[in-house]
Every structure is written in C-alpha cells, then in structure tokens.
C-alpha cells in the first residue's frame, strides 16, 4: 500500500515535470521574440536588448528552463511585465476568486446531479428519468459562457436578483462576495451537472442489479433506504472519476465565465495577460492550471481507496 502510494506520487511528480517542460518549450519554440511581443513595435533596440537580458533570453534554453523551474519550486514565478509585481502574488490574489468559484460550481453540480441521477435510475422510464435524460442531452450541448449570458438576462436584467457581473471582494462581506459568485457558479455548474447526472444514472442502474442490494432488501430495508445507504455509495466511483475528468473543462469554463461576469480571477488574469502580451504571467498561469488539473486527478485516483475498500488491497491499483 505504501509502496503503491510512493509509486503514484513519483508518477505525479514526473507528470508535473513533463507539463512544465511542455509549456516552457511551447512558449520558447514558438516563432516570435517574447521581448518584442511584450514591448510592441515602438520599442527601441536598447530597451529590447535590456528586456531580453532581464528575461534571460540570451542564455541557453536548458538553463532558462532550469532557472524558471527552480524559481517555481521556490515560489518565485518571476515578475509581471505589466503590473510590475511578482506573479506569485498576483496568482494568490486571483485565486481568492477562482477557487471559491470552482468549489461552488462543483458543489452545485453535485447537488443537482446526484439526486436527479439517482431518482432517474430508481424510477427508470418515469417522468424524472425523461427529464434527467433531456437535461443531460441539453446541458452538455450548452456552452457555459452562453449559460452565463442567459442567466444574466433572466436573473439580473429581468428579475434584478443578482448583480450582472463584477466582484466586490471578500472584504465587502462574506455574503456579498458569495452573492456575486452565485450566478457564475451556476452557469459553470449546469453543464457539469448534466454530464454528472448521466453518469450517476448509469452507475446506479449498474449497482441496482447487484446481489448485495437484494440482500439488503431481504434483510428488511425499504427500497428507499437500500437505495441511498447501499446503492448510492457503491455507485460513487464513476461519479467521482467523471468529476475529475471534467475538471479540465471546468477550468476552461472558468476562464470564459470570469470574462463574462467580469470577475477578477485567474482566468481573467490569463486573458488580460494575453491582451497585454505579458508572457511570463501567461506561462505561469497556464502551468498553474495544468498542475491543478493533474493534482485533482491524482486526488481522484486516491479517493477510490476511500470510496471502494476493495481496492485497498492494491491489486487493482498498480
């Protein structure tokens, strides 16, 4: 078990290393001089040369990578060209928006999807099942950022319940901040929930045929109790797997949603870095997002051990 964990951990570190190398190489090998891109066309040769030196562009590729990586490992992500502050600080500041947003979206999507999927499976071919199927099909097809626009149209413009965008900051009060994040989180959650609903339904249907459920019913548990106490927990492995796989799309959705709702999060930072040609910030944000996706998927792998005790023997986990 411990050896397995160590092997997984080494794999995680290697993957992270490979991602950092990939991002660095893409940024380094793409045509175009970062210094020229960052300064624009009007820069003089002297400023260009100065920036090139400051960025270390005159040094060999491998050295530049190792320096960047070394910095990242010590929490030094370099300096933003536009803001003139350390990128690490920028990212931490923006995380205070993106992390709660993502967490709320995941929470909402689970709260919608699990009850809906379980009910659909329990009352197969009933009305709820039909509704869940339609929701699953429609939800996957709807872009999260369009969902955001529709929610703004409905809740902000028509009903006036929520702000149409912007973020007051956590210092404005916990609930005011939460209120501002509610609509964007819902926009992110609905497409996610549709995928999860489908997976939950399928997983519960699979479990419903199992012997242990018949045993649970035989020992006198009601249908409902057997469903929630025995079927649902056993159906959670594919649901959590999908939650992990979907995390990449959640990140992509967050980048878009933050721009729809004008939220000062990491996605907006990446977008601003793109329009300001702040390549260092972009490289770091992309690395951060990719690392997040990898770590989340690693945690999902680990969570199987907790969700499914049978896997703890380690046989199915090599």
């Amino acid at each position, binding site marked *: 078990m411990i050896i397995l964990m160590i092997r997984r951990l080494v794999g995680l570190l290697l993957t992270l290393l*490979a*991602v950092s190398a990939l991002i660095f190489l*893409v940024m380094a090998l*793409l045509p175009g001089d970062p210094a020229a891109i960052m300064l624009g066309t009007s820069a003089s040769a002297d400023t260009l040369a100065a920036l090139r030196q400051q960025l270390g562009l005159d040094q060999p590729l491998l050295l530049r990578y190792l320096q960047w990586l070394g910095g990242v490992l010590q929490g030094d992500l370099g300096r933003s060209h536009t803001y003139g502050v350390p990128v690490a600080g920028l990212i931490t500041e923006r995380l205070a928006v993106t992390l709660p947003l993502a967490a709320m979206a995941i929470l909402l999507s689970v709260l919608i999807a699990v009850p809906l999927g379980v009910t659909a499976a329990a009352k197969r071919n009933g009305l709820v099942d039909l509704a869940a199927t339609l929701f699953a099909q429609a939800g996957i*097809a709807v872009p999260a*950022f369009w969902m955001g*626009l*529709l929610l703004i149209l409905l809740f902000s413009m028509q009903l006036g319940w929520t702000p149409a965008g912007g973020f007051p900051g956590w210092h404005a009060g916990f609930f005011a901040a939460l209120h501002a994040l509610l609509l964007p989180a819902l926009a992110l959650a609905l497409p996610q929930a549709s995928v999860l609903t489908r997976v939950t339904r399928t997983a519960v249907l699979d479990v419903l045929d199992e012997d242990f459920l018949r045993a649970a019913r035989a020992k006198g548990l009601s249908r409902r109790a057997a469903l929630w106490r025995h079927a649902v927990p056993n159906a959670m492995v594919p649901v959590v797997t999908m939650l992990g796989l979907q995390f*990449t799309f959640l990140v992509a959705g967050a980048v878009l949603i933050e721009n729809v709702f004008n939220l000062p999060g990491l996605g907006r930072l*990446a977008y601003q870095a793109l329009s300001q040609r702040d390549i260092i910030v972009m490289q770091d944000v992309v690395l951060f997002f990719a690392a997040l996706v990898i770590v989340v998927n690693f945690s999902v792998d680990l969570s199987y051990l907790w969700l499914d005790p049978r896997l703890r023997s380690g046989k199915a986990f090599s």
Partner: protein
Amino acid sequence: MSGAGPATRGTTGFRLRRHGPLATGLTLILLLAGVALVSLVWTPFPPSKMQIMQKLKPPFEVGLLGTDQYGRDVLSMLMAGAWNSLSIALFAVALGAGIGVVIGLAVAAWRGVLETVTMRGCDVIFAVPPILSAMMLGAFIGPGRWTAIFAIATFMVPVFTRITVGAARQIWTRDFILAARAAGKGPLLISWQHVLPNIVGPIIVQVTIQLGLAILTEAGLSFLGLGLPPPAPSWGRMLAESQTFLRAAPWLAVLPGLAVALSVLGFNLIGDGLRDRLDPRQRGRA
C-alpha cells in the same frame, strides 16, 4: 436508449428513445451543413455589410432575425458563422483523430515503453485545456483559423489515442490476429488490415462526439477573441459582442448560443445513436 425491459417494449416512449436521437441528430446536422454550404454562395445580405441606420432592430422588423449594433443582418452572420464553425471543427477533429488513431494503433501493436511514454504524454496534454493552449499559441502567432484548429486538435490527440489503444488492444488478443501473425504479416500490415477495420465503430462514434466538443470549444475561443479575426462572422464573437447590448438587444445574446447548442446537440445525438447501433451492449449506458 435504455428501456429494454419487457414493460416498455413497443410503447411510443420506447420507440422514440430507440430511434428518435439518431434521426433528430441527423436532421440538425444536415440542416447545419446545408446552411453552412449555402452561406458560401448566398446569404440574405452580405454578412459583414453595415447599415448603421438599421442597427439593433429586433427579429422580423429588419431581416428575419434582426440586426446587430452595426446594422448587420443577424441571419446572414449566423449562416456564415455556421460555415466557419463547422469547417474549423472538421479540420481540428480530422487532424486530432488522424494523429491520435495512428499513435494509438502503434501503441497497441508495439506496447512496452512506447505505451508507458504515450499514456503519460496523454495525461500531460490532457491537463492543458484548449482555451489555454490557444492563448499560448495566440500570443505568438496571433489569433486566427489555424490557432483555433491547432489548439483544438492538440487536445483531441490524446482522446483518440486512448480510445484507439483501448479498442485495438482487445483486437490484438483475438485468434484471427494470431492467424495473421502465423501467416507472416508484420505489425504494420496487421494494424492496417485487421485492427483498424475492427475498431472503426468506436472511432466514428468518438469523431461525432468530438465534433460537437470542437464546435463548443471554437465558440469559446472566438468568444475570447482567439478565433477568426473580424470581420469574419463567428458565433463566439457574436456572443462576446452581444454582452454590451444585453438589455437593448437580448436576441443578439440568445440566437448565436442557440446555434452553438443545437449543433453540439446534433452531433451528440448522432454519436449516441451510432453507439447504440454499433454496440447494443452499451445501450442506455454512459
């Protein structure tokens, strides 16, 4: 879809679930392809022609679907956008599927270190969403058709590699492969003659589903200004521009999104329908 139980067999609900998705999907996609092709030779108005006097007119008042903030005809823009969206999606998926399937076949044929390295590589690429890789590409080579295509295709390669490896490995365990090897055929020939024809089904299903995802991603990219540069109409940019006029012209925010959603829905329904046909055991499953 599901509902193979005797209680539901023969009811309208069952028949609808069985044949409805594929038929609906095909209708939607034929419509999309038709509109896209027609837009190449005819649109009600030139899609980028501005008529400021006629700006922000609601549907039916000017043109069938109204006009935008520059007085451009929304229907014409949607039609031209359909072509841009569909062509980018097709290119991206063709590229991604082509590369992914070849890598997948090679991995299934040779296994070993190649497999470990490729699968780790898939994890790595899969960790960078296309929005972010498009941003990296866009910073250097600028936004445009190929930035979008490369970003989307890059993300599709690991998807198709995984699908191919999974399906092809099963084929490699079969007796007829053993027979082919006994006949002296090498891995290349076996992959081409025996493995590929037997895994075309799941690959086609994946192609349709990924086409939907590609349209979704392209809309997101052009929403951020990473797709086709103006004045080429694109659904994503129409949505981005609509944000300023949400109150005055809500149809500008609704219609392009509807176009995206219906296209993606069409491809997904075809994918589901095909999966049911090709692999009845999967019926009603994820």
